[in-house]
């Protein structure tokens, strides 16, 4: 274990180096460009054994990854925003063929208008593709999560996206602890694929036409396997904690035991909110935080149990569903709580779109307002757009 200073992108690239995948096929896009740029330096310097495939688009990048994964390789790539959108078609193909590809992603808004900064629209738009999703709060977590995700993906044959917030984490240098190369290798182990398209002794058929008679059965089986990801994740996260001393639950609770109200949010904002919670507690206000880290598969029972104990919860969504009903975290959380025995009053704050700064004062305002909801026993405003000009 050693302490180094790295940006989120450097931390992700470093984890990829230590994982030493067989194939990385990637196309650069801000703010994830550095990840593959740094990784390609590792390739050029002979520090990894990876076959690096430079392609002409993200669609091709993930397609090449699918081919390499079918061939039995340990495969990774990296992208952001429009790049993930262009991969969208292939996301389903990778997941449907059960290929444990891992994407080191940087969360960035989707055009238009053109913007390169953080929100969660890109990955939230890929929720239904059949990929595990982990949202990281800082560089340390991004580094750790890539290693954890790779192992979970390979054990469950479910691909994974690990993401950080654009610039806020991707380009911010922080102090972090990294494992030794051999420790990472021992932890992830040798990849034993279920099959290889290059195994000429045992030829197989991949991706055949599958019509009304069997498609549904195959999808049902995929959904069932997806439901096992959380269990495997919990086990692997525990193993990782034993190795590194850092434990990352799928759903994290911070100072929630005696709290009446909580914010439920993800990414770097959750980290900042912890600091706010500490400050509020110094003032004697009992408030907590629940952090959504895994959003696919949804940790349904965990969310129900965690949020069920509060009188009121403010969801903070860094994207919108364009359903005229707030953000995706809010929508799905409402669904989860529908049949909960005890459920909180639930409001939504859509914030930080296109990288709009979220300050401590913004988070304090949310805590103030949610406290007010408890006092009144009712919600005045279900969905608030926080920090946008023209809104109260």
């Amino acid at each position, binding site marked *: 274990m050693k302490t180094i*200073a790295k940006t989120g992108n450097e931390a992700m690239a470093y984890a990829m180096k230590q994982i030493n995948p067989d194939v990385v096929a990637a196309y650069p896009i801000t703010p994830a460009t550095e990840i593959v740029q740094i990784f390609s330096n590792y390739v050029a310097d002979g520090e990894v054994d990876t076959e690096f495939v430079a392609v002409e688009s993200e669609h091709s990048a993930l397609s090449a990854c699918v081919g390499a994964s079918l061939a039995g390789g340990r495969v990774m790539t990296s992208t952001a925003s429009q790049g993930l959108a262009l991969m969208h078609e292939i996301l389903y193909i990778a997941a449907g063929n059960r290929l444990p590809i891992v994407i080191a992603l940087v969360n960035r808004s989707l055009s238009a208008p053109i913007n390169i900064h953080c929100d969660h629209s890109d990955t939230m738009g890929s929720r239904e593709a059949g990929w595990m999703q982990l949202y990281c709060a800082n560089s340390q977590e991004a580094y750790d999560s890539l290693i954890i995700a790779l192992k979970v993906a390979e054990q469950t044959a479910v691909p994974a996206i690990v993401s950080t917030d654009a610039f806020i*984490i991707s380009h911010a*240098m922080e102090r972090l602890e990294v494992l030794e190369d051999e420790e990472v290798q021992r932890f992830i182990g040798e990849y034993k694929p279920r099959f290889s398209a290059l195994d000429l002794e045992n030829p197989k058929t991949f991706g055949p036409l599958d019509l009304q008679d069997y498609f549904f059965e195959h999808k049902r089986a995929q959904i069932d396997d997806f439901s096992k990801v959380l269990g495997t994740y919990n086990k692997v996260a525990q193993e990782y904690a034993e190795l590194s001393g850092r434990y990352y639950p799928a759903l994290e609770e911070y100072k929630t035991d005696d709290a009446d109200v909580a914010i439920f949010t993800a990414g770097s904002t959750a980290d900042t909110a912890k600091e706010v919670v500490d400050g509020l507690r110094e003032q004697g206000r009992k408030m907590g935080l629940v952090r959504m880290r895994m959003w696919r598969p949804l940790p349904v029972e965990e969310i129900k149990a965690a949020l069920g104990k509060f009188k009121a919860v403010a969801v903070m969504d860094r994207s919108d569903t364009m359903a005229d009903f707030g953000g995706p975290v809010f929508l799905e959380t409402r669904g989860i709580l529908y049949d909960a025995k005890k459920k909180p009053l639930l409001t939504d704050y859509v914030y930080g779109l296109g990288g709009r700064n979220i300050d401590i004062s913004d988070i304090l305002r949310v805590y103030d307002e949610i406290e007010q909801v408890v006092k009144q026993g009712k919600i005045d405003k279900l969905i608030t757009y926080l920090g946008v000009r023209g809104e109260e």
Partner: protein
Amino acid sequence: MQQYFEVRWHGRGGQGAKTAALLFGEAAMETGKYIQAFPEYGPERTGAPVKAYNRLSDGPIRIHTQVINPDVVVVLDASLLESINVTEGLKDNGALIVNTQEKAAAIKEKLRVTNAKVAVVDATKIAVEILKKNVPNTVMLGAMVKITGVLEWDSALASIKEKLEVKFRGRTEIIEGNVEAIKRAYDEVEVA
């Protein structure tokens, strides 16, 4: 809430404000601090005003917000003083460090700084004389370390040298030149 030491760097695209923040951050980490160093990104064009930030602490840093009230503001290019309010949000008893040919008192008066100290050093002159190039960013680190006192001089210098060695693999004259320039800025910085 935790106490932070926060820095805002002002420069122009190409002057290395981000690099200075990263070097300062890494040097601080070597002395045992928890650190953040991050640029404020926009369209990156040579000559456009840019900002970069540092946040230092004795414990783990969890906040990921912009720096609003810096303890120190460093200005890599005096021409920015005309167009940008560099003292915005500067904390009481903080410090403004400017790369300029003018005297500290003159800058202090010009910008009407009453709540903080102003320090100046002609980093451009030092850079041109020693490095034969207008690269004031690393030079300013010398002034920065001296004025703020948050880092121990010897270990900060050693760390910066180490990072320069990685960056300029084997090009001794650049590495040594930078170290000499940083030392000169440390000696020549003037305070009002």
